[in-house]
């Protein structure tokens, strides 16, 4: 237990020494936090669905949970059940084999069912395009509120896209 506590204590110092972007990031984090509260009046719950991505977008969504971005600290939570989700975050060109599961997840969500298409593939099929195996983007299957370009979009861009979707629905 002592080494763990020591490590936690020492890591606290390391966090203080974070990269130069930290201050800017803190400002934006606070801004996003305030906007979520103002727009939704509560925390934001997200269901992420990989509809056939290469997994790079998933790596960057998972990065949002690391101590630098700390989205849970901002009131954003990734959930397992679409029934708890305010927002559906879709990655991949929507593989035909994922078309029905993606629809089912969307149907299971309560209104207002915000949808963010994440990454170049979810935007328009990306490098995979539209083919016998892919639908060619999330908007071919669901009503998409916001599209975040990038391959993959870095964590900050993902957050900004999420916020844009929240802002769209509740001006």
């Amino acid at each position, binding site marked *: 237990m002592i*080494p*763990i506590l020591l*490590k*936690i204590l020492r*890591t606290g110092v*390391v*966090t203080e020494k974070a*990269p130069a972007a930290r201050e800017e990031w803190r400002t934006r984090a606070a801004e996003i936090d305030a906007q979520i509260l103002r727009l939704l009046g509560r925390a934001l719950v997200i269901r*992420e*669905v*990989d*509809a*056939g*991505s*290469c*997994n*790079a*977008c*998933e*790596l*960057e*969504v*998972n*990065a949002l*949970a*690391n*101590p*630098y971005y700390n989205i849970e600290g901002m009131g954003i939570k*990734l959930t*397992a059940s679409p029934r708890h989700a305010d927002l559906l975050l879709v990655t*991949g*060109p929507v*593989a*035909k*084999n*994922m*078309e*029905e*599961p993606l629809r089912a*997840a969307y149907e299971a969500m309560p209104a207002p069912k915000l949808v963010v298409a994440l990454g170049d593939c979810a935007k328009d099929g*990306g*490098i*995979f*395009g*539209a*083919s*016998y*195996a*892919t639908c060619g983007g999330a908007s071919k299957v669901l009503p998409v509120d916001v599209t975040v370009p990038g*391959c*993959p979009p*870095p964590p900050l861009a993902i957050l900004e896209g999420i916020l844009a979707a929240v802002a769209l629905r509740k001006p």
Partner: protein
Amino acid sequence: MAISGLAISDRRLAGEMPATLARVTAEQWLDAARRVHETGGRLVALWGADRRDDGGAFSIHAAYAGSDGLAILELPVAEEEETYPDLSAIFPCAARMQRAVHDLLGLVAQGAADLRPWLRHGAWRANEFPLRREFDPEAYRANAFEAYPFVRVAGDGVHEIPVGPIHAGVIEPGHFRFSVVGEKVLRLEERFGFAHKGIDRRFADFTVAEGYRLAGRCCGDSTVAYAWAYAQAAEALLEVAAPPRAKWLRGLMLEAERIANHLGDLGALGNDGGFGFALAQFSRLREDWLRLCDEAFGHRLMMDRVVPGGVAADVGDAIRASIAARSEAIEREARTLRDIFDEHSGLQDRFITAGRVTPETARLLGLIGLAGRASGQALDLRVDFPAEPYTRLAVKKAGHAGGDVAARVRVRFEELLESLRLVREIAASLPEGATRVELPHPAAGAFGVGWVEGWRGEVLVAIEAGEGGRIRRAHAHDPSWQNWPVVEHAIMGNIVPDFPLINKSFNLAYSGTDG
């Protein structure tokens, strides 16, 4: 490689990796498989091609690895036959690859026990084959979602737990069907293909020079490994070599990718063992590392940085110093965290004996990569068939025989620390010179293969050039093809709540195998 006792005329392929190519008959196809198996070789990849416009037949290809490299065999399959002899009775890992070949090309592995569809879930009809020339990939087809006949386990108290394709966490899609009694798993059956994007067909829309971008998106966490394997294959068929500095930069990026993945997975493994502290610590280190990769190569995951003919990035002295400093800092922290893992009895209680794959099972089923090295299968291309810069780096091969989650965690730590050493060594001894060469125009019919030890295991890419610089056929193989069936064995007798932990200890690719 030479297959002992088999009278075939093979030719040595150009390129960085030792490889031969031979055309065989159906009899030799089986004979070769048996001989490779008897001499301790392994099946690396299996794919088919439509060659009816060039020689009048289909073809099925098998890539084997032995002690002296790769042997690629090509069996012509007549249009009216559409069959070839089954390999899965000799190499169990062939079963799913053969099912995928059938779904895409319509060739049947004669004698195979399992002929169910694998990639085809109903998005195209059973009598349509996407890799056939006459198939129109853009034609409209109703998406039918056909039912899949899972194997049923009968008996008192047996029930099924279906999981997926959408999982609880932020991970790739796939379906797991557990047959359980109480908490104990009797049987797991995997059903994948949900992330099928038609990559094999899509390659034909690219030129040999451009296809690296698609290869680098077969599996995002291994983008460097795929792009390097693609570049090796392209350079082999073009008969060009990347400059030394480019090769060393590729090594730097491949090890950086290994570090990023091990950091991420060690945190996730701790978390799945109920130790959230580990996730906070390792995800912080991973983020530090990705930011450095971004600074060094202009992309956090280093996508599109390995290209045929060299690399599309270079590092200066300041970055080299940052790599040395950051890798040392991470190494110090990783050693502390390893001690914490080792001394945490609750965590070790979850790790030890969970998801055990004995060396014997691993050998029989053909477990490879880091999971193989945790089950006594001492295979690592960086050591066994080193390409520059590994020829000069003396990589230390990790190895354990425990075969449980604990052993896979140990291999992760060892390989993380070794890769941190390697990036420092590469950064310190990077040769001067160009980073990219001009590519000649490919000759139609030229064939090349690339073979790279990614963080998960060996990635193979084979390319055949067509007319006008285009790709006629390219195939990218993920090591998860070999390892996924072993996960079905690893979970047997364990309890359902241990599955996420066991699964994460392998962390296999869905998109990489779905194609």
